[in-house]
């Protein structure tokens, strides 16, 4: 037995002493600094987001409008040789409508007015004649889309010539700017006044459908197997590591894979949304597996035990209890994975979706393009009118993304259960 060491008598902490006060002040200051740093980080990201949104909306909202010029078309007096009783597509194509439109516009608005309407304005005349051949016997005022120069000037940023033309037209009340429905219903084109997002939008929908159809069942099945059935050994570890690695592989690699396997070995059609969807499915699947495993893991074991206890088979436990309860988590993961696939361009360039496709795809094997690739293509166009169309297309893509993320939150809230 040794003598107990003498413990020095401990004084109670003097909270009022200078040293202590200083320490407390320092702690509060550190707290405030941390809060401020967090606030700054949030502010910075919000500022970037706001900047992105403002610049997009500033440029892009104009892309949703178009300028039209009202032109009085005197069909009987025009140099148009068409029989109102025999209007066919071929007859209209042979009628030299572009020239006729130019002549009509010149007659109505003056010699230099031919440049004011869009080079594809004649398609408006064609559609009107097709819809009602009797128009050929009447004088009618038809609104024709303005050319890019006039369109930009009417939205106040044009060249002096175009500005003067717009002034003249607006004095005569012939010019109007309205919502450009064509932007939502037409497809890619070469004249910025007559392009639309529909073809790319439909291509995106088809591609996403293929991606979902392939990656969701495979992803969920993998997650269920790995969580519920797989024995814990080195094989499952290897699979787990591989899937986690796959989730972090740069997307362009998947594009190269798609090119060499789907196109060169399997000979699937180039530029088709089928191949695009398959390539993106490879990219999305690991995300779904990881999200799915976490969701399944978070289902309490008591539920499994209870189900087994009342005599359910393991398959019944999984499909009647575990999967429905894990579904909100799986769906959230799926939609986040899909949203990433939605914004992907790089892998799709490799499989030929960077193309001019003016006919909207009719099925998944038809050549198609997708929204991000369309944006990429338009950003490289020569004509200035495409600048605002590019921004407008970005807005459409952002709205699409917003809708998908909104759906993810809705699904999570609807199906979420607490234990």
């Amino acid at each position, binding site marked *: 037995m040794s003598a107990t060491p003498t413990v020095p008598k401990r004084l109670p902490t003097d909270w009022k002493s200078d040293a202590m006060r200083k320490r407390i002040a320092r702690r509060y200051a550190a707290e405030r600094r941390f809060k401020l740093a967090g606030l700054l980080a949030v502010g910075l990201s919000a500022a970037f987001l706001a900047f992105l949104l403002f610049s997009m909306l500033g440029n892009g909202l104009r892309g949703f409008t178009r300028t039209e010029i009202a032109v009085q078309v005197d069909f009987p007096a025009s140099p148009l040789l068409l029989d109102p009783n025999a209007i066919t*597509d*071929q007859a*209209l*194509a042979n009628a030299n409508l572009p020239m006729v439109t130019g002549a009509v516009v010149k007659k109505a608005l003056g010699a230099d007015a031919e440049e004011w309407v869009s*080079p*594809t304005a004649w*398609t408006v005349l064609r559609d009107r004649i097709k819809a009602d051949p009797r128009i050929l016997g009447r004088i009618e005022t038809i609104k024709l889309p303005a050319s890019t120069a006039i369109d930009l000037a009417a939205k106040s940023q044009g*060249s002096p010539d175009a500005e003067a033309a717009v002034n003249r037209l607006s004095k005569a009340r012939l010019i109007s700017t309205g919502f450009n429905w064509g932007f939502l219903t037409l497809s*890619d*084109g*070469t*004249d910025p006044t007559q392009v639309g997002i529909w073809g790319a939008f439909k291509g995106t929908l088809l591609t996403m*459908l*293929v991606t*979902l*159809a*392939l990656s*969701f*069942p495979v992803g969920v099945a993998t997650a269920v197997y790995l969580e519920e059935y797989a024995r814990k050994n080195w094989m499952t570890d290897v699979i787990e590591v591989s899937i986690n690695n796959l989730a972090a592989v740069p997307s362009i690699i998947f594009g190269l894979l798609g090119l060499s396997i789907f196109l060169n070995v*399997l*000979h*699937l*059609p*180039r*530029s*088709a949304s*089928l191949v695009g*969807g*398959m390539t993106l499915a490879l990219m999305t699947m690991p995300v779904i597996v990881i999200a799915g495993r976490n969701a399944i893991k978070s289902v309490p074991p008591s539920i499994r035990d209870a189900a087994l206890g009342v005599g359910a088979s393991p398959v019944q436990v999984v*499909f*009647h209890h575990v*999967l*429905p309860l894990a*579904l909100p988590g799986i769906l959230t993961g799926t939609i986040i994975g899909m949203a990433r696939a939605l914004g992907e361009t790089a892998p799709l360039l490799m499989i*030929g979706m*960077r*193309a*001019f*496709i*003016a*006919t909207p795809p009719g*099925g*998944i*094997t038809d*050549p198609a393009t997708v929204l991000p690739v369309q944006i990429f*293509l338009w*950003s*490289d*166009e*020569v*004509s*200035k009118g495409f600048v605002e169309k590019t921004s407008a297309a970005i807005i459409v893509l952002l709205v699409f993304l917003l809708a998908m993320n909104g759906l993810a939150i809705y699904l999570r809230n609807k199906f979420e259960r607490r234990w």
Partner: protein
Amino acid sequence: MKHIALLAATTAAALTLAGCGQQSGGAAGGTRDQIRAVGSSTVYPFATAIAEMFVQGNPGMKSPIVESTGTGGGMKLFCAGVGAQHPDIADASRRMKKSEYEDCQKNGVKDIIEIQIGVDGLAFAESNKGPGFKLTPKIVYEALAANPYGKGPNKAQTWKDVDPSLPATAISVFGPPSTSGTRDSLAELILTKGCETDPAMGELKKKSEDEFKATCTRVREDGKYVDSGENDNLIVQKLAANPNALGVFGFSYLEENKDMLKDVSINGVEATYETVSTGTYPGARPLYIYVKKAHMTAIPGLQAYLNAFAANWGPDGALAKRGMVAAPEAVRKASAEAVKSLTVLDGSQLK
């Protein structure tokens, strides 16, 4: 439970669809009812414009698909073989190379029709606020080469270092990347010409073609030449922001952005429509499309598509309105003849 059943049903339906697609589209010997073109990003806007006119003039036909892959990438796809899964047309901003022609022959693409659709100017431009450069191929070469005349790394920092008549501003040139046809033209039309002003280079060419090529066309990589991707609009924006920089891109971009940019004369020749068309501007280059003769009957509308090109490549045609420069009349005549009688390209003419 209901949700899962629904999901499973949708999935099954979609998978069946995918399966069908594989059968119909996957066959190597299948047919195709729309034209497919691949190739140069410079020809892309013209090929798409003609595609649009082709559809308007031939109602009921599907719109041709034009893919922008760059000339080299397009040639590779074009020469991969004959059949529905291979493209019908290759757009090119330079002539087909001998090696590419041989590749075509090897893969069974025997008869190729060569059609020159017009001319594109490789334009040098600066911002409207720029100092007004006057260049020659020699100056450009000495300013941009990685190893001028094989005498060691390029040390020129300012334009004055290259030529005393130029301002003492730092060399800064925005241009296309090495995968671009525009870059090939820069190397061939400007750099090689500048390089050849030195007689020693002529001897080098005789001695070793490869070494000559490396010396004359390799561009410096120390940041004086800024590779700006395939996006020519980006170069336009960069120039507008940097008055002392020079840009290299297609002539049509210069035309479209006259309010921000002005052209830079080379050998005293300004880049205008006339000088580019006649080839007096040193940066002018021909634009081609290559068509497989074997596809002419198999693909509906291919002849009509070529006819639409021929109808619109004149000086008043729709392509000129979009920034292409019409070829001289003799060339246009020869091309029109090629479209009409489908003259097959003689590979021995190629380099």
